[in-house]
């Protein structure tokens, strides 16, 4: 593959993310990887549901007493918006507009960072209340499920930062287009997982 080949918006392929065999492989492979990730999170959800509100005798923490929806609502808003901004970035990827794509990716990253900061605040808050990782089955299952999601967000942030930095000087080509595109797939995926966490852990926790 020739990295120096210059494109114009007219010669840029409609689907730059899968224009070469290598790109097609990465595209399909990443979808399959997300399939495996789905099973991973499904297992964590099942474990959480089995252990929800369970603890040693005299355990006083419950989902109703612990969770506060306003904070989680703001987190949800941040992450869902970041998914939208990553769609804008992909729109500009297809239009061969590198600067605008980078801009939207930076915005995506900052929204993700905001989400992660609030999640850390949330965890610290719970720990201060005495809801520590090792105090019950409920707390272990909760931190493992939500923490695994948070870890995925953190990995995504490192990933996109490296991508933005690495490609800042050289613009789009058919080699890095797939990298940006798979990042956006990944970002949508952790967004979808969050929708489930929001529903199953927080909403059903507060209401149910």
């Amino acid at each position, binding site marked *: 593959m020739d990295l120096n080949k210059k494109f114009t918006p007219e010669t840029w392929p409609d689907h730059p993310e899968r224009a070469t065999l290598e790109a097609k492989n990465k595209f*399909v*492979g990443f979808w399959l*990887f997300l399939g*495996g990730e789905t099973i991973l999170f499904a297992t964590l959800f099942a474990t959480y549901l089995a252990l929800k509100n369970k603890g040693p005798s005299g355990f006083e923490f419950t989902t109703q007493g612990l969770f506060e929806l306003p904070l989680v609502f703001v987190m949800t808003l941040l992450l869902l918006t970041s998914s939208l901004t990553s769609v804008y970035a992909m729109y500009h990827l297809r239009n061969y507009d590198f600067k605008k794509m980078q801009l939207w990716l930076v915005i995506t990253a900052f929204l993700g960072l905001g989400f992660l900061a609030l999640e850390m605040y949330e965890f610290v808050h719970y720990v201060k209340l005495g809801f520590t*990782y090792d105090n019950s*089955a409920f707390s*272990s299952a909760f931190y*493992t499920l939500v923490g695994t999601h948070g870890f995925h967000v953190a990995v995504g942030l490192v990933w996109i930062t*490296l991508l933005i930095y690495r490609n800042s000087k050289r613009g789009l080509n058919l080699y890095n287009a797939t990298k940006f595109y798979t990042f956006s797939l990944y970002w949508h995926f952790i967004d979808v997982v969050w929708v489930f966490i929001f529903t199953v852990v927080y909403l059903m926790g507060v209401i149910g």
Partner: protein
Amino acid sequence: MSSVAQKRGFGATLWDWLTTVDHKKIGILYLLGGGFFFIVGGIEAMIIRLQLLTPNNDLVSAGIFNQMITMHGTTMIFLAAMPILIGFMNAIMPLQIGARDVAFPFLNSLGFWMFMFGGIFLNLSWFFGQVPDAGWTSYASLALVSEGHGVDFYAIGLQIAGGGTLMGGINFLVTIINMRAPGMTYMRMPLFTWTTFVASAMILFAFPPLTVGLFLLTFERMFGGNFFDHTMGGNTIIWEHIFWIFGHPEVYILILPAFGIFSEIFSIFSRKRLFGYSAMVFATVLIGFLGFMVWAHHMFTVGLGPTANAIFSVATMAIAIPTGVKIFNWLLTMWGGSIKITTPMLWALGFIPTFVMGGVTGVMLGTAPLDYQLHDTYFVVAHFHYVIVGGTVFGILAGLHLYWPKMFGTLLNEMLGKVTFWFFFIGFHLTFLIQHWLGFWGMPRRVFTYMDGQGWNSSNLISTVGALFMAIGITVLVYNIIVTSVKNVRVANDPWGDGRTLEWAIESPPLYYNFAQTPLVRGLDTVYIEKMEGNASGLTPAEPVQDIHMPNGSFIPFMMSLGLFIAGFGAMYRAEESWGLPVLIFGLLWTFIAMAMRSLKDDLGYYVKKDEILRDMKRKGGQK
């Protein structure tokens, strides 16, 4: 590097193997790694059998016996059978579909090194004197009270090795989806490629639960989590579910590629097209699907209730149907064929009755009421050895003889191969047939000794003698490999003379770019079709001779795996040693920096020039 032997220093050769991304070399590495662990697991099996030779034997203590059975099971499943099968998939599958490599050569190398480091990590437990001892299933109620770091070695070692397997699965799936040669439609793919495809899909969906299960166990044992401890609100059954949601598909991951190898063998050595090809494909896919629906038949005695037991019982028996379809198709492939009894064919012939016996006892165990009687007896031990040894290990040994010339360019000695077969085959049935009765007579599995006067003495003696026979068989095989490697008589493209698929139309071993020109596939058994039409080369090219794009080698996979290996020790000693946490962080950083290097440094591969390919073709006088 071409197939003409070039004199190179030891260092250069070592570096080449450490950094290779060539699917054929990685296949050989998997075979070597898996073969090493197969011997280790075999030695553990021999110690188990020697301990049970006589009643009240004290060859090993009860504790060491527990370690032996745990490590024997874990090693054989995760570090021997799977890697060897993945080795065949690597070495053969891309050739069968006319590809020049797998979809992700870098990931392929990473998968191998993670398996290797995970396996070494697990087995280092022997040198630390703290060995996993909660059984290969490592049920939480046992694993949580296991003292020392034994179970930690299990959890972290398998975590690292399992990650490698998952990557291999995704890799093979994408390879088969995207990289088939022109004309190679799904329904023209050789059966071994099909079973690789289905087994890989099963790996993709079965390994994430194992990952989660091992993480939960790691967190509970090392980081204060509570998932399985009921005094903290946990539930020990969660581990059993998670483990078997992984563990049952796992046994089909082990058997399907073996089915694929046998399908190739029956077709080649009966010199006939595989009978009922489309039914075979359908049966493979159906087995893969049903494999996910039956995990709770390992848990009949847990007390899930009659409804759950009934559903899982029926689902279990349903798997016998597609498996039966396969057995009959193999028999009918031989029917009217011009059969040649070679070593691979001997293994295939031995496989059918052996595996059917294992299948029948499987249906017996799938009957929930009967399972209550037979649970945790030697009947279960006999059953799963009949399917895993009679199916997978026979398949591996058959594939080893069949594909040895394709992988190494020399044929294993047929005479010695048959000696191996007869020793192993007779030894196998001596060892395990009697164990069905031992189970009926009430001998529980996983006991380190038994008392005199229960009528178990002579049966156990027979069983141990059988195990010795198997050990002799494997020793002959090792001797065979050494002798033929030293002689190194080079063979032609198709040493068996009856190859039907693409891998038999190219050099043994293939050049590093496999196909000088991507072949055009004209039907099922395309090489056979070409030969029948008088095309001696067996190939019709689909493209002119042109530059070939190839991936670069890389040392990063080795470094990434090494980082995880280091981090594993840090995690294990975090609680008791001050260096634990820093080592954990150091190892993870090491891995992440290696990953970042991979991400930041462009790796575009290189081109093999047209001139070089033409030179190779002229020298070989091969492909037109």
